[in-house]
């Protein structure tokens, strides 16, 4: 279809990137022979961002984070939100300049070149796989707690089997399901937000001593400032959703307006909720006791404020939230694989659509398979950190790509949204992203670096003759 000589060289198999001229309007992308309808509105885009993020920060991390950093875990979440904002702003500018599927991968490959693009594109695939596995393990804990609330006590041994079962289910449903689940996702996010606002509103008033009994004061940062930073690195996984909005950038209506609003808006919404949740949770129990409740600590917090009804509401919320995070991430993974395969950095077959269901079953399988393998490890913190590591590399490079593009100022670069505080914001965003990696556990760092080296190796073998820098449609 695309002329090999026109764009970007070829890979080992002789395929070249598929690049065609397009015209973008608010409603549609127009190619030579076809139109691609933009169907997602602001609400849908926000639901993707919030729906991806909210599962982790509130329903999985509070106990773990409080155990590491004490009540100052709220500060860790605030740091995470700040870093995410520093990246969301540059990401918004890049997304409005290049409203294409693929998100971070696309901007970096066009702004910095094929090698960083390939590393980021493939790392994003693995990053999303790690993140999804993490959400699924979180789901497993909530599934076990749900059974416990129903009076069926199975113990934590069932967490991984349930997570695997659900992970396989999500993958299969995405391959075979042709029902439009987007409305369901919007509804789930709206329901979750309502549960959380009631819960955190009341809990917040209680914690401040306005209603209920005053809680015992405790030291804010009992372990000093360092754990606050390492915890920030751990919980950054809670903020990985905003960039997933950019992976569907090609399908969002009026991208110049909706992309920045959805990305920045979803970070602000979940950031506020996370900080409030940690504050309420640590006020209810004190961080030490909170940490003994583990992944589902929020259930006990719900019980503390509202009795068993509160516990049931939180268990239900946790199930929904981890489900929606996992599902949204599987979809993003398949789009990430598609974007890379379209550019001839993965075999074209990877983005093949099956005739029966019209779904990209190969890409979904390339997401689902590794996800299940990782779920089986059950290492919540490791999964979360590696996911954050791989995303943070992308985020850092994304800020660098913005700086490079602004400096080179190619004629095609014409964003609708320009990052405020240039160049301070992207420079800080890059530094903060890379710095956060430094606070992770050594194992996570090694795995992250290993994956990046492997992706660079793949590039050298498969696609080193592909050129993508400045190759826009």
């Amino acid at each position, binding site marked *: *279809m695309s002329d090999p000589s026109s764009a970007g060289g070829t890979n080992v198999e002789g395929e070249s990137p598929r690049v065609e001229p397009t015209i973008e309007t608010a409603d*549609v992308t127009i190619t030579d022979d*076809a139109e691609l309808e933009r169907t997602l509105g602001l609400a849908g885009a926000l639901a993707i961002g919030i729906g991806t993020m909210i599962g982790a920060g509130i329903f999985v991390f509070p106990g773990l984070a409080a155990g590491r950093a004490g009540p100052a875990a709220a500060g860790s979440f605030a740091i995470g939100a700040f870093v995410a904002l520093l990246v969301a702003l540059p990401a918004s500018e890049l997304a409005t300049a290049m409203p294409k599927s693929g998100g971070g991968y696309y901007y970096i490959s066009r702004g910095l070149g094929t090698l960083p693009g390939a590393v980021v594109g493939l790392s994003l695939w693995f990053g999303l796989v790690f993140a999804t596995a993490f959400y699924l393990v979180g789901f497993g804990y909530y599934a076990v707690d749900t059974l416990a609330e129903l009076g069926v006590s199975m113990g934590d041994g069932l967490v991984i089997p349930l997570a695997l079962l659900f992970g396989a289910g999500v993958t299969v449903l995405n391959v075979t*399901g042709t029902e*439009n689940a987007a409305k369901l996702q919007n509804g789930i996010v709206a329901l979750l937000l309502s549960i959380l606002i009631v819960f955190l509103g009341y809990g917040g008033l209680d914690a401040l001593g306005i209603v209920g009994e005053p809680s015992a004061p405790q030291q804010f940062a009992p372990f000093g400032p360092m754990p606050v930073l390492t915890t920030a690195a751990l919980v950054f996984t809670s903020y990985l959703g905003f960039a997933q909005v950019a992976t569907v950038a*090609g399908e969002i209506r009026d991208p110049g307006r909706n992309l920045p609003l959805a990305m920045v808006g979803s970070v602000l919404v979940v950031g506020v909720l996370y900080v409030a949740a940690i504050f309420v949770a640590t006020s209810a129990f004190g961080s030490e006791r909170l940490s003994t409740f583990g992944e589902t600590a929020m259930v006990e917090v719900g019980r503390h404020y509202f009795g068993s009804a509160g516990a049931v509401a939180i268990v239900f919320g946790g199930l929904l939230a981890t489900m929606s995070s996992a599902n949204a991430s599987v*979809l993003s993974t398949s789009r990430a694989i598609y974007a890379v395969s379209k550019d001839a950095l993965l075999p074209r077959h990877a*983005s093949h*659509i099956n005739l029966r269901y019209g*779904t990209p079953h190969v890409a979904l399988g390339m997401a689902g398979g590794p996800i299940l393998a990782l779920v089986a490890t059950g290492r919540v913190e490791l999964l979360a950190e590696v996911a954050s590591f791989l995303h943070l590399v992308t985020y850092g490079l994304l800020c660098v790509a913005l700086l490079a593009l602004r400096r080179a100022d190619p004629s095609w670069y014409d964003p609708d949204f320009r990052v405020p505080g240039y160049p301070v914001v992207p420079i800080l965003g890059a530094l903060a992203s890379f710095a956060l990696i430094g606070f992770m556990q050594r194992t996570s760092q090694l795995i992250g670096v290993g994956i990046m080296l492997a992706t660079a190796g793949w590039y050298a073998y498969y696609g080193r003759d592909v050129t993508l820098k400045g190759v826009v449609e």
Partner: protein
Amino acid sequence: MTRVLVPLAILEGESVSTGLPTLLATMDVTVLGYHVLPEQTPPDQARLQYEDRATAALTDLAEAFEAAGGSADHRLVFTHDRERTVDRVADEVAADAYAVTGATGSVDRLLVALTGNIAGDRITAFVAELVGDREIGVTLFLATDDEPGGRESIAAAADSLAERGIDVETTLAVDEPPLEALVEAAPSHDAIVMGERSPSLRSFLLGEEADRVAAEAVGPVIVVREESADAAATREQGIDADRASQLED
């Protein structure tokens, strides 16, 4: 010239029967081939895989309309949302009507329902243009609760068509369920023309009523749209542009 949009799920084998291009020979036709994708699939991904096949099918269809003597172009859209796509394209091409395709051979008699929210004179004007100087008879159909008023308006519509030399009959359904009465009247006709229900195409062309009429009547159903503000504005702009270019000349 009046434009009719023919939306087709092109990759699911939807096509037009031989009678439709002939019936629409007096119109400008836009064949809208669309393909609805589940949300798991980016439209661009589907385009890479299916574009060539869909374009070939659309080109053939447009040629069938041209061969029947009409003028036709085609659009191909990959989408998650059929309604949004059909609405958008209809507005962009300023379509005055949609066709719900159905099986038909040559069309000898049209059933024209003066129902819906479209003014009767818009429908009769459309029908007059559609029939042109061909030997196609028209049965006007009106379902109403108000017999004298209905009789009056159907007679006025019949007169305006008869003036143009069209063979007109009338059917008035008083106090009957409008849809059932329409479907009952359908068998002796080859195609149906009706007005769009408010508020838009969505509740009509895609709603149950159109499906039922199209399914039970077997033949094609042509739905006359309300002229949207956008379409009207586009048309005026077009006229302004024409005038401007004429002034330049």
